[in-house]
């Protein structure tokens, strides 16, 4: 430990003359010393460049790779490693892609130069969360399996980023530049505040840790909903839903927050904070209060970004009976998900894990959490081989779960 600190001091250039001398002597004493020094030096150098690294989820890429390989394998006759046919196939695929993207990238590059002086940077977190600070001082804690896109430099009149996933965002105050966070379904506009955002293609959940925020369906600022400190709101194709509950504590490394939908009865909001006044028909939230959020500046109108903004379902008509499609479906970690099941479907009800059932807590699974239990189990069975126990009458008791290959 002592040695490490000396090395670090030496590397930072802050070591005294004597310390430097001692360090150099120490280094020349043995190869072990020398290699310890070299290792620490390269960790130091490389970790200073960590900001430039993007970690891509290799599992996702591997699956994409396998489907690519499999499709070219089925196209050819048999697996002959250096067979010219195979080669041609794969390079043709690549060539075609390049050709296709060439026209598009011409436009993109021109666009980048003339329309948007800003270059964008993208971050996909894999298994690891990622914390960063934007150039305006805004701090973003991006959870695992999330996506962030942001300009290297913000425009002069507005700040805008795109998030699909879970993030805690501490926005630097700058009243002259409203900060807009776009997601597949919603936009969130703020002037300076701290929020928790969980956004996917199906739902956006926003928790306001501090400050005033306006949240609106993508492209529809007129339907904005105003939120204050402590408010938690979810937006799905069914509209807004107030979920305010204090348990969403900002954790630097948030799990995908499983917001339990107790019953398919959207009006039965658990303990709503009085000031939010949960209107049963949430989307009908009228004109935003002018004094809180300044009328949206025209320049914040989201530039259409082809890959990101799927047209939101403008479901303005409130459906009292949730259709199957409205059930939030999302990726959850097995641990979180099983805990949720245990809570919502306790033994006396119909779900139980027999002692010692093992599963990978961090494995993610795509499920509709508020679907009927049997449907959920069916979804589980897509990924796991589940053995049920017979001991339990009229209820599901899981004896073992084995991840399918």
């Amino acid at each position, binding site marked *: *430990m002592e040695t*490490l*600190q000396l*090395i*670090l001091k030496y590397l930072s250039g802050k070591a005294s003359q004597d310390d430097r001398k001692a360090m150099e002597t120490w280094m020349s004493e043995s190869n072990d010393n020398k*290699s*310890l020094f070299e*290792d*620490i030096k*390269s*960790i*130091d*150098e*490389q*970790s*200073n*460049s*960590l*900001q*430039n*690294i*993007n*970690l*891509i989820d*290799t*599992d996702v*890429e*591997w699956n*994409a*790779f396998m489907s*690519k*390989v499999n499709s*070219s394998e089925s196209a050819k006759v048999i697996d002959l*490693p*250096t*067979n010219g046919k*195979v*080669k041609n196939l*794969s*390079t043709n*695929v*690549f060539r075609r*892609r*390049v*050709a296709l*993207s*060439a*026209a598009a*990238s*011409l436009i993109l*590059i021109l666009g980048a130069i003339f329309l948007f002086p800003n*270059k964008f940077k993208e971050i996909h977190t894999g*298994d*690891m969360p*990622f*914390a*960063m*600070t934007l150039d305006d001082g805004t*701090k973003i804690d991006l959870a695992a399996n999330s996506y962030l896109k942001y300009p290297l430099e913000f425009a002069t009149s507005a700040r805008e980023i795109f998030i699909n996933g879970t993030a805690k965002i501490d926005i630097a105050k700058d009243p002259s530049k409203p900060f807009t966070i776009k997601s597949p379904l919603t936009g969130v506009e703020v002037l300076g505040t701290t929020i928790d955002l969980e956004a996917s293609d199906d739902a956006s959940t926003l928790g306001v840790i501090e400050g005033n925020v306006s949240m609106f369906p993508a492209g529809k600022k007129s339907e904005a909903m105003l939120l204050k400190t402590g408010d938690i709101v979810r937006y799905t194709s069914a509209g807004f839903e107030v979920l305010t509950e204090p348990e969403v504590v900002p954790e*630097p490394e948030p799990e995908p927050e499983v917001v339990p939908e107790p019953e398919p009865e959207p009006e039965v909001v658990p303990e709503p904070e009085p000031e939010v006044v949960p209107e049963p028909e949430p989307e009908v939230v009228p004109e935003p209060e002018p004094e809180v959020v300044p009328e949206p500046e025209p320049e914040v109108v989201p530039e259409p970004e082809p890959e990101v903004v799927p047209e939101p379902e403008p479901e303005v008509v409130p459906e009292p009976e949730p259709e199957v499609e409205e059930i939030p479906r999302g990726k959850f970690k097995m641990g979180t998900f099983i805990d949720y099941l245990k809570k919502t479907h306790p033994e006396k009800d119909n779900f139980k894990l027999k002692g010692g059932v093992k599963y990978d807590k961090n494995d993610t699974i795509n499920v509709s959490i508020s679907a009927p239990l049997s449907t959920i189990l069916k979804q589980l069975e897509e990924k796991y081989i589940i053995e049920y126990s017979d001991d339990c009458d009229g209820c599901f008791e899981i004896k073992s779960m084995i991840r399918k290959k």
Partner: protein
Amino acid sequence: MSLENTKNNTVESLFKQYYNPLYNFVNSKIRNSEDAKEVVQDVFVKLWNAKGKIDLDSPTIKSYLYTMARNTMIDAIRKKRDQSDVDIDNLDAGSIATDDGDALDPYIIRTEIMKSLSILKPKTRQIFKLNKLQGYTYEEIATHMEISVRTVEDNMSRAYGLLRQELKKNEIFS
């Protein structure tokens, strides 16, 4: 250590080990995430098609992958240049081609550091990230976290020590 036949690499294990280093290498040159992914995917398609013919456990597999990545990237740039009139001036294929294999290690080390951060204790990890990812000085971190500069230093050297162990374990360092 285990340079002999103890590795049993598969295309999949190599993919998971080298995807991020290769991606970051290519992306640092062409500065286009999608194209970089495409290039790396194509490298592994080539590897897949050559399996059985090359030794996946060979100690030179790394330079083999990087060489393929370099060539694939240059091909991609050339083709793009031919098919559109875009002048990709900062994409000088010549300079990419002369890059020496050893210079590529940084991406492996960085990727590995990022992955290894999870072994650090939360506090140590936070301090390390504040310093290295967000650029705060030790003094700023000490003030922010209400601890002494000495504690920050202790945590940093602990982080370095643990990271080194981890990198050794994964044979990044010999």
